[in-house]
């Protein structure tokens, strides 16, 4: 057992050494992101299995369901969700620029890029809300669906949109998975925006000047990139495949 090693010169088992030469906060953020990736992977794995288990005429085709564009009557498939992907990638880029400015202690640039990242996050959340709204309220014509009513008889009703019981698009699991996966991801985006706002206020208040580094911005940046990464996978598996 080593006796009284000095604080600055640690050894591997005696403490005072950063594994992989990464600071504690960053390492813990990375570990959290890997565990969160497991959660999202579980959801995407179950979605992939369910979706491939269903035949193609039973499972709705995402490019036929998601083809509306806000403020227009246009029906362009995948247009709006591509815009959402672009906005999130753009906000990821502004986040990297904020972290890079933090390395150079360029406070004004950090504030500028963080503000743009927060804006992009709000834009994405608003777009997701619109997607959900349109998914729930449904198309103009709806669809005739045969259900069993309260008396146990087969009844043909006009169904509009999607909810937890019935939907006009096809398999009920499609709606369930859509709500859960995009909702879970949207929650992560929302918490990411809140963290970004906290980082933003801290930079303005001079917290980073006091501690002498911009590592909080870097850690929030890691979380934000993770959110973008998950969206890239959700976009591919849900909308494209």
């Amino acid at each position, binding site marked *: 057992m080593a006796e009284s090693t000095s604080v600055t010169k640690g050894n591997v088992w005696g403490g005072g050494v950063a594994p992989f030469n990464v*600071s504690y906060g960053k390492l813990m953020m990375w570990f959290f992101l890997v565990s969160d990736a497991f959660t999202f992977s579980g959801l995407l794995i179950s979605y992939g299995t369910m979706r491939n288990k269903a035949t193609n005429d039973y499972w709705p085709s995402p490019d036929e369901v998601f083809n509306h564009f806000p403020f227009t009557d246009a029906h362009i498939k995948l247009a709006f969700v591509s815009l959402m992907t672009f906005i999130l990638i753009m906000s990821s880029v502004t986040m990297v620029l904020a972290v890079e400015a933090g390395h150079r202690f360029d406070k004004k640039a950090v504030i500028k890029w963080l503000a743009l990242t927060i804006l992009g996050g709000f834009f994405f959340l608003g777009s997701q809300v619109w997607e959900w709204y349109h998914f729930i309220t449904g198309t103009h014509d709806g669809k005739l669906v045969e259900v069993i009513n309260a008396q146990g008889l087969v009844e043909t009703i006009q169904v509009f949109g999607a909810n937890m019981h019935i939907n006009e698009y096809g398999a009920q699991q499609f709606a369930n998975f859509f709500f859960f996966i995009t909702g879970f991801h949207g929650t992560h985006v929302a918490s990411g925006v809140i963290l970004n706002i906290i980082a933003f206020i801290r930079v303005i208040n001079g917290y980073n000047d006091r501690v002498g580094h911009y590592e909080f911005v870097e850690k929030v940046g890691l979380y934000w*990139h993770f959110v973008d990464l998950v969206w890239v996978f959700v976009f*591919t598996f849900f909308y494209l495949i």
Partner: protein
Amino acid sequence: MDNYHYHTQVPGEPIAKANTGWIWKGFFILLVVTAIEVGFAFLNDAGHGETRFLSLEFQKWFFIALTLVKAYYIVFSFMHLGHEKFSFKLTISLTMILIVYFIILMMIEGYALRDVKLLQPDFFKRTYKEHHVTPAGGEHHDAH
């Protein structure tokens, strides 16, 4: 506390010039790859009764491959994992590559389940009375 040393700013020292070339390069790569994905989804459409240019199978694996390219740039470039020590890179990326492998395996499993299900007799037989109720008001909806 640990041997991770922060670069501290000397007060009064001018702020260094920005080095952002690699960031915009990463952005353009992500943009182009996404554009290729969306463009491919558009152009490889089955239309009405026409066959696709490239099969649906190929399209699905093509999208997964492009997604992995995007994931690589986000993790190794934007999240700085490329600049970390090799053992740390392994810790993070090996875990995630195995997860992606799991997703692909389960997708193939799903295909197998679909093929098995088609071979089974239809046991979801309707056991309720086949008595159709006309909708309230007696309106007749055209089935589109």
